[in-house]
């Protein structure tokens, strides 16, 4: 009996995780896995240590922070090849083609969140200081963006991004997304993690779990399976309208499997190292954590 703790609520961006349970991928591998939703208060790495969970999803900054504080966590696979954390802005505003275009913009960031870290890195690279832009703290509702008080707003591109784009398009407004990785900042997002102890004591179980999960993800990201995948997602995420879910799935594909040749779950070691460096520069960790040694990846097992 295994528990798998996600980072956030059930929605289309965890289609693979949903599919693994719903379509019997775990069962076929002989595992009994419960997939659970997460939240800021329900942190997968904590639960690994406390024994409430056996596997989980955590973002790179969480992993690095945990390592910094002596947690025993290892990365099994990197789900997002492109960080879904991006900024949305209206198309009637000048497009951001270079980092310098950020100058003078009113940008939303979640103070304390990793979008803040990313944005600060971007601004530093562009040589922009606090005075060159206006930064506003954001919360969970989008009113300031919708009311045009803030013009560049952080979203998860494949979930909220889709919803917002849809809402605005109904009023005849188009949107752009500002993607940091296009400007050389590759801050890694969600990954599958487990504890070092788990790997040592049950390497076989980890292997089987990861294999089942990743094959579910492969299936979920296959456009041919779309109808089936959406049906599974709908069981868990009943509130989102169907057309939105379809668009979300498409957006998710581009982040998980940006290219046909990329195997789902591969670890972009360079991006991880960059993430560590960024966090070190932003004084979010005390010292280097040697992240490379904690990256196992689908091949490492």
């Amino acid at each position, binding site marked *: 009996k295994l528990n798998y703790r996600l980072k956030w609520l059930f929605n289309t961006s965890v289609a693979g995780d949903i599919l693994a349970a719903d379509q019997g991928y775990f069962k076929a591998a002989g595992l009994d896995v419960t997939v*659970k939703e997460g*939240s800021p*208060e329900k942190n997968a790495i904590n639960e690994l240590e*406390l024994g409430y969970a056996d596997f989980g999803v955590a973002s790179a900054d969480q992993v690095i922070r945990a390592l910094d504080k002596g947690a025993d966590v290892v990365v099994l696979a990197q789900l997002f090849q492109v960080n879904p954390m991006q900024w949305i802005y209206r198309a009637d505003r000048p497009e951001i083609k270079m980092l310098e275009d950020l100058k003078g913009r009113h940008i939303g960031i979640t103070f304390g969140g990793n979008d803040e870290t990313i944005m600060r890195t971007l601004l530093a690279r562009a040589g922009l200081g606090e005075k060159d832009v206006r930064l506003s703290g954001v919360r969970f*509702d989008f009113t300031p963006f919708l009311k045009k008080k803030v013009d560049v707003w952080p979203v998860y591109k494949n979930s909220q991004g889709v919803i917002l784009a849809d809402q*605005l398009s*109904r009023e005849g407004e188009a949107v752009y997304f500002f993607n940091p990785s296009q400007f050389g900042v590759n801050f890694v997002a969600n990954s599958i993690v487990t504890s070092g102890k788990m790997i040592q004591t049950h390497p076989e179980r980890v292997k089987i779990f990861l294999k089942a999960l990743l094959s579910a993800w492969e299936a979920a990201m296959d456009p041919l399976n779309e109808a089936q995948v959406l049906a599974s997602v709908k069981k868990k995420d009943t509130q989102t309208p169907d057309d939105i879910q379809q668009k979300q799935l498409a957006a998710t594909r581009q982040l998980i499997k940006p290219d046909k040749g990329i195997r789902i779950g591969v670890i972009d070691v360079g991006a991880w190292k960059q993430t560590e460096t960024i966090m070190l520069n932003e004084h979010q960790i005390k010292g280097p954590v040697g992240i490379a040694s904690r990256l196992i990846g689908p091949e490492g097992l």
Partner: protein
Amino acid sequence: MLFRRIYQFLIVYCLGLVGLLGIKQALGLSDYVIPGVSLILSTFGRVSGGYFLDVLNTLSVTIFGQIISIAMAFTVGILGRKSSWAGSFIKVMAYNIQAYPIVALAPIIFILLGDGFLSRLLIASMICYFPLLLSVLGVMAVPVKDIEHFYIATGRMRWQLEVKIRAFENLSKLTTVIAGSATLAMAGTIVAEFIAANAGIGYSIRIALYQSDLAGILTALFYIGIIISVYQGMLETLGELVKTKWSAPKGGELL
């Protein structure tokens, strides 16, 4: 009585809605800031059934949580009624824990209890118990001299009796607070679900918020209002029953 409560709620709700729509109209806000009537109606139709069941689910935890809160409030209130060191210590403890917003305590609660039903219940009752506690403390700390004198003078006073006398003399205050605390328990449960659970209307509100679906939130508020009105109406009827059962018949008051 119950019927009145419900239609009064409907009036309140409609007033609120009309106010929102008025603002939308006046400021010319688009549907994504404040949803229009047709969007509200279609959303209502879509999520109605699910939300109704969610609210019932929430109500079941609410009832549980309220019972626990009442028990906690009376326990702490009775222990803390004295101005002794121990009494004031218990009060300080109860007060401080309250001052900690649940959002700050939630991570610790999850570490200690995991994320099951227990955490949800604990959070719900932590939100609800404190206001009850204040009232219980207020009532329990004031002696009813003309009744208590005899028992003190003759050495018959026990804490149970003291509590009973003071509770009885303040029965209608206590029933008001207890019936009223149902709404607090409901709000507490919703918050608990918002942070912790994967069921209940609080969870649905979180999803709606995440999707910036104000129409969905309005629907949720509608069902919460209806159900809480019914629940509270029932509690009040119960309170009246207790009062007439326990206390002297009031019919005999001539002036």
